[in-house]
């Protein structure tokens, strides 16, 4: 891969990163907080590409150092560099992934592969009261940790509303899941929630639903990592479009 081709690849990579961070595409892969760094890195890649092309395509170096006859300023060889890295060709793959394929956020397949992320390890000592509202909007992670570690005490008999996607549970029953990220999708882990009562039925995996219900003290075990899965007693549900931020 010669230097001009490298410059083109850098330009594409920088452009793809900038495009992904200006649209909401990047939210499928990383946390929101990375956005300014992504934009800065993308711009730097573009600048590096432009500077490379500038030095490559300029007619001749103003002062080709005579003391350095075999140096790279020797523009007769114009880009036919020494040991130009061939492995750089691989950088086309992430460009392709971002610009052409743009894979979706992790969904039910990944949720089925991994055990539920809640473990007694992350138990905070006490939970603040739920915010106002009836039903009150809570995250799947928040509900699941209150239900498991607080035995539902801070939920009481309030009605809660949560949004998640449908995936197949251990015994084939649909369960509600949401992926949690700490850095990027490589460390994405599911939070799983069993449902009783008016369980959403007949929905394909990865369908997003909004369920309203109350605390249930039923608990199941995730066969993947033997962790506890709390339940929600569903009163009503409706199908919703996938949210912009699919991770919690």
């Amino acid at each position, binding site marked *: 891969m010669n230097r001009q081709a490298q410059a083109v690849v850098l330009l594409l990579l920088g452009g793809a990163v900038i495009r992904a961070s200006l649209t909401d595409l990047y939210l499928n892969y990383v946390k929101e907080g990375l956005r300014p760094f992504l934009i800065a890195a993308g711009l730097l890649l573009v600048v590096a590409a432009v500077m490379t092309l500038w030095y490559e395509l300029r007619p001749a170096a103003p002062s080709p150092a005579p003391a350095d006859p075999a140096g790279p300023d020797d523009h007769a060889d114009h880009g036919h560099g020494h040991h130009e890295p061939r492995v750089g060709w691989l950088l086309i793959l992430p460009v392709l992934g971002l610009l052409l*394929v743009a894979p979706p956020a992790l969904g039910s397949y990944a949720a089925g592969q991994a055990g539920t992320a809640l473990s007694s390890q992350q138990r905070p000592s006490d939970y603040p009261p739920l915010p106002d509202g009836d039903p009150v909007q809570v995250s799947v992670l928040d509900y699941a940790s209150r239900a498991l570690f607080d035995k539902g005490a801070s939920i009481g008999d309030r009605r809660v509303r949560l949004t998640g996607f449908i995936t197949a549970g251990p015994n084939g029953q649909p369960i509600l899941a949401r992926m949690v990220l700490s850095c990027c999708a490589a460390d994405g882990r599911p939070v799983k929630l069993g449902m009783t009562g008016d369980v959403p039925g007949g929905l394909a995996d990865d369908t997003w639903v909004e369920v309203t219900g109350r605390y249930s003290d039923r608990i199941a075990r995730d066969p993947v990592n033997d962790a506890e899965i709390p339940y929600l007693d569903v009163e009503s549900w409706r199908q919703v479009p996938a949210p912009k931020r699919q991770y919690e």
Partner: protein
Amino acid sequence: MVSGQTDHPVPAGEPERREPAAGAIGVATPDVREEGPAPVDGDGPRRRLGDRVGSVEVLAGLLILLIVFREPLARALSAPRLQTWTTVFVSVMVQAVPFLVFGVLLSAVIAVFVPRSFWARALPRHPALAVPVASAAGVVLPGCECGSVPIAGSLIRRGVTPAAALAFLLAAPAINPIVLTATAVAFPNNPEMVLGRGVASLIVAMTMGWLWLRLGRADWIRLPRRPELDDNSRGRAFWAAVRHDVTHAGGFLVLGAMAAASINVLVPERWLQTLADNPVLSVLALAVLAVLLSICSEADAFVAASLSQFSLTSRLVFLVVGPMVDLKLISMQTGVFGRRFAFRFAPATFAVAVAVAVATGAVLL
């Protein structure tokens, strides 16, 4: 891949690096040599072909093909397993790009703008003392492993003793404020994990530095020849270094990301469940998992926290090994330092990291 490009034969009389060897800064062993000129045999015909079809043309053709076949390609990738693979691959790359770019910028600054004499003043003259200083410097610099490989390469190029540069390479991603804070957040009930991680990683970094002084051979490290770094125009040298390091280290990062995505999709977590009950197997399992998963050091604490079926000691091993040895790092180290180095350094670091982490776990946890 088909690059249609060959290495330009360089006259053997290439002048040595211009800087008067401002000294072997803390260097006990002979200076690390850069690779010599590439062999020129068989260059003729390939060269002529390379002149007619250059990389740019190949690249353009490839991109046109990809755009034309976009639809079938997207359909082929829509199977859930492949789709998850693609998502994980792309997200590892997106996550790593800022760290890679900023690390490369810093390494280019070191390679082009920081004079050799600076390192002579900044580091103790004796290599055995330079090692702990470099490890401590790693603690202060918040970096990711993807960025620290090119930085360590630049440090060696600028005459820093490899032992110190390698200690920095290991310490920088493993123990810095961001990583330790993330660990504290992930283990709210076990603050001793933060201490254990910091202490164990620091010990491993210094041990590996000193081990390199005792056993390391300078000719294991083969830094690729980089004549452009000696360019008269600092601006051109700087951007050439950035361009080269991003394509080079970035290419190896792609290899590592592909491996990590494959492991993520192919190894179901329930396999681990069966290993968790045996204390010895659980340590080995999480050590190997840390190598295979190649998670960014700022995120691995959360993954370790979720592996709740494993003992705290085995999870400490996961946290100590991960930032120092993983597929992504081995791949990048092979690219930057050469195969002979990476295939010795990575297993040695792995063994030292596991041993130190288990010992730390026995004392602290």
